[in-house]
């Protein structure tokens, strides 16, 4: 058997599951709309009103998301290092310390510039 067949099968099942669930919901479910249902979902809080004065909007979530990426990238490199820690030895330790220090500089910059203050 071609090794790609199981992958295609899994893909087809996944696609079909999504399609069938949506179709079943649309066909069988009751359709009662109210105001809350029609609102955009924004992390469980009330959607922001229209931006005031020149179309500006708060970027608090954006900053948090960017900050998350700093640590996200750090973790991506920490895992392989943890796995090969024994083989890389002192070299790996020093290089990772330098890397984490560099990442930390970005974090310190955000902190000093008030990126961690919510209001």
């Amino acid at each position, binding site marked *: 058997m071609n090794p790609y067949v199981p992958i295609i099968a899994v893909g087809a099942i996944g696609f079909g599951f999504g399609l069938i669930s949506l179709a079943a919901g649309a066909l069988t479910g009751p359709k009662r709309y109210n105001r809350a249902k029609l609102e955009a979902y924004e992390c469980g809080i009330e959607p922001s009103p229209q931006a005031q004065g020149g179309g500006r909007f708060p970027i608090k979530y954006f900053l948090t998301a960017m900050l998350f990426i700093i640590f996200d990238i750090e973790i991506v490199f920490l895992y392989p290092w943890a796995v090969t820690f024994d083989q890389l030895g002192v070299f790996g330790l020093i290089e990772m310390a330098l890397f984490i220090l560099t990442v930390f*500089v970005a974090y310190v*910059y955000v902190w*000093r510039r008030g990126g961690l203050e919510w209001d």
Partner: protein
Amino acid sequence: MTGFVTPKLEYVALLPMLIIFAGAIIGVLVEAFAKQSLRKFIHSLLTPTTLLLALFQVFANKDLVTTNAAINSVVIDGPVIIAQGTILILTLISLLFILDVDSFAPEASALPGSEEERKALAIGKQQTEIFPLLLFSVAGMMLFPAANDLITLFIALEVLSLPLYLMAGLSRRRRLFSQESAMKYFLLGAYSSAFFIFGAAFLYGYSGSIQFSQIRSAVVGSSGNDVLLLIGIVFLSVGLLFKVGAVPFHAWTPDVYQGAPTPITGFMAAVTKVAAFLAVLRIFYTVLDGAIWQWRPLLTAVAILTMVVGSVVALVQRDVKRMLAYSSIAHAGFLLTGVIAFNKAGLESSLFYLLAYGIATLGAFGIITLIQDSQGEVTDLNRWAGLGKKSPAIASAFAFFLLTFAGIPLTSGFIGKFSIFSAAYESGNIAVVVVGVLTSALAAFFYIRVIVLMFFTDAKDATVTVTLPTLRSSIAVWGTAFLTLILGVLPNSTLSFIENLAIFTR
């Protein structure tokens, strides 16, 4: 399972780049901890010191036998040494304008005339983040020509591009225009990066390796599927030619060059071209040399198109910055003839051309920052009329740079154009040379039109003045003019220096 071995990093060969990165990171810490009023002063010492240290180290590495550093992902050979030296020298010159001219918004995110803007001006806030950004960009540019595998090449491309996107949007005057240009640059740049990485994936699929040396042997042995190779070459070229600003990937150039703060425009036009062209030369000379009959017709078409479009469209421009942007597109076409030449003379003349063109470009964009009225820089060509009578010295310097772009004898532009066209002629690519010479003549027309406008037309606008803020600008303007003259009159020592070093290692 194979074990992991501690990699050997050739720190000495990498030192110039490490110095720049370290300087940039210290710059970020300065931004974080130093007092607002002290930041610009600290940066004005830190940034040039970093660049000078790196330049010193590049020259110390000159006699290093060609090294592959960091497990073969970086190669330091003669052309890389020259490119890194050129990048650092040009950055030092452009730093003189960046430090001197107050063309950056203190609070770039604030709308002009808004409350935030007034507050920032009231406390005397200055834009200082530009300095670490500049250093990060320079570090990427130094790595770009030295990359020896596709991943490193891509990382270097992003490191050099991302700060440039930001810096393009920091203009103090015509803020929204500047932000628009930054947005355009970012979106198109991201799009071209996608092409680039797609091409890299195809080359990996073709050769089974990201290492340049192994891709090369796969191409020479033509062991893989040729369709993959061709798609790979085309897509990778799209990514690289975008950075270079070659037609048909040039559409961003005039908008971004016009919208970005003028000292940054100079930096982009001069220094980015050095990095991008060296990478183009390395890829086509050492990686894809086995596929020359596939890429040469492609690049010939692009080069001819670039020269023609750049020169013809520049004729009708009414804005100095836009005119120089189209002129830079035309110059990208001239430089592509050096790639098409595919011989040692082509490499040498490209390196010389990049240095000569970079110096003259910095000088020309630097002078634009000095021509001002009460609203800031004046870039409308009509208002430049009669400048030669107001300030003969500055107007003469600008005229001299324009003559350099046109390639008139006794300027560095002539030596550059002559050597690059003769390299292409030697290799038998007559068509490209003929188009190059004809478009050079055409381009000379619009350069000379500006000179006539400056010297033989009466001033219509009395509000336009020439301001020289401090000694730094004067040094930069006259220094670049002097270097352009020296490279035009006595080019031999530079040419022989380049000749000795300019050998790619494979």
